[in-house]
């Protein structure tokens, strides 16, 4: 038994505990696509980065649309985004896209399923570390985003977290007061996600309607 143990140890100590992952991909695309789009017959995976699609000019436009700057170390123009176009036969029935967002205790991964018009049909956290993660992951919380699209976020100021009263976004409730940081982080992640989908998938159909 000595040799296998040494091999295990060798592989472990020389390869590290964690693997780096800057992009954001579905954990199990086949399963996740079927769960989010039961009617689908397949999906296509597309890859894009701000650097490839337009560089500094595109980054500046996305930041302007978001109303906030990308955070230098982990939110850069060369981050690869993985976008899933969901098909039913030859017809596109929607999209799935996830983004990384800095949360209070670590990276948060926020995934959206959109219909072809860019309206949210599902929201969920693929990754979230917080004492109140259970409340944030509850289906009731994600359900509040269903039916929203990018123009609804015109009423949300990312840097201050201010939401115009009476807007559809104002109806979204934080399920745990102690998780305010991650609640705001998730709103920012959704807005960023919708802007990236608009840029990479929807031909900027909501350009100028997302507020700044």
């Amino acid at each position: 038994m000595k040799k296998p143990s040494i091999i295990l140890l060798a592989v472990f100590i020389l390869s590290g505990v964690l693997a780096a992952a800057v992009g954001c991909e579905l954990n199990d695309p086949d399963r996740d696509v079927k769960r989010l789009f039961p009617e689908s017959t397949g999906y296509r995976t597309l890859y894009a980065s701000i650097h490839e699609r337009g560089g500094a000019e595109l980054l500046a436009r996305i930041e302007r649309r978001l109303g906030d700057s990308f955070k230098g170390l982990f939110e850069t123009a060369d981050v690869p985004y993985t976008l899933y176009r969901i098909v039913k036969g030859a017809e596109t029935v929607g999209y799935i896209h996830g983004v990384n967002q800095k949360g209070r205790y670590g990276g948060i991964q926020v995934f959206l399923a959109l219909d072809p018009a860019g309206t949210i049909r599902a929201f969920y956290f693929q990754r979230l570390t917080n004492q109140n993660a259970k409340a944030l992951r509850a289906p009731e919380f994600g359900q509040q985003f269903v039916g929203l699209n990018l123009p609804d976020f015109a009423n949300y100021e990312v840097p201050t977290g201010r939401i115009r009263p009476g807007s559809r976004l104002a109806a979204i409730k934080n399920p745990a007061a102690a998780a305010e940081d991650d609640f705001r982080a998730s709103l920012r992640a959704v807005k960023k996600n919708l802007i990236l989908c608009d840029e990479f998938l929807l031909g900027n159909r909501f350009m100028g309607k997302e507020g700044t």
Partner: protein
Amino acid sequence: MKKISVYQIAYKNLLRKRTRSLLTIVGIGLSAWVLASLLGFNRGYESALKKDIDNMGFQVLVTAKGCPYEAATLMLKGGTGLRYMSEGVVEDILKHPEVEKVTPMLMQAVFDPERGDSGAISAYLGVDPATFPQMKAFLKFKQGGWFSDSEARQAVLGYEAAELEQREVGDMLLIPDKNIELTVVGILARSGTQDDGTIFVPIRMLQKEFGETGKLTAVGIKVDRRGDIAALENKLYDLPDVQVVSLAQVKNTIMSLVATAKVMVLSIAVIAILIAMVGVVNTILMSVFERVQEIGIMKSMGAMPGDIFRMIWTETVILCLLGGTLGVLLAFGLAKVTDLFVRRLLPYTPTGSLVIVGLGLGLTTLAIVIVIGLVSGVYPAWRAARMRPLESIRSEGE
């Protein structure tokens, strides 16, 4: 009248069937590329592995006896069932004159149900801020520095761990399950070692918060330059309930595993070379048979068997020289691609360059290919040299 040499005739002969010559050169080139890359891998892998092990900062690791190593236990038992040593073992180890430095470590892991779909293990390595940084002097910080003291609720993240967790200095980190908040005080620059993926925390804090006061999972030992590692290992085995792992032993184990892969790749290279040899023999032999009458005329004009032999042999050497050069250039140019390919094939690869192709290696490959070419050319050259002039001229071609 201008005199034409055997070498010029050989060169012109190859140009007469350009496509065939080119394909033969490509075949030899590909074989030479495989050969050079394999030889480069032999050298590169060992050197990269040695560098990785040297970068660990210690040459000997002492762990608790039983299920042996905290690393293996973490993987196999999902973070439970760790075996511990008493802290007193550090003093016992320090008594040996071969020991230059020691650093105690405590590995702990928790199950994080919020990670991934069905949860995952988060591991924390408790290290002593007084001894660990000295032993890992090569570690540089991208941001911040080491902990302020060994009981602080602080963390230092390896480069990839920080990237994965999206943490910067001043951010918070939560140890799930235990509900312990840590402040990130340092982020290491990329080192290309296992430290890139590690979350370091102060050892005393970890012992206290996990209820493992006075316990360790490992002790790293740096041996004095004049010390005999093997002798020290034998002495350490006298300590009660410890397992001694020499990193030289780890290196040898990995190298023996990789040797199997090397044999397989070497076999492929040998087959590729044999195919290339057959290709060369075929090309030259066809060329000889197509020129039977021409060779007959040359002989009737006074060419000796040795001249014909040399001419055909020269054709082979030119093909091999050009093919070999192409292969060596491919090996140089595609070393990084080969590196990526090898990384996909092997279960574990060190962090440095796996394929090192230098000038010496290029020349060695070229020499091997030329020798193979010379051997391959003997039979066609011999067949051409022993042709009878009149029979050859009369023949319609074989």
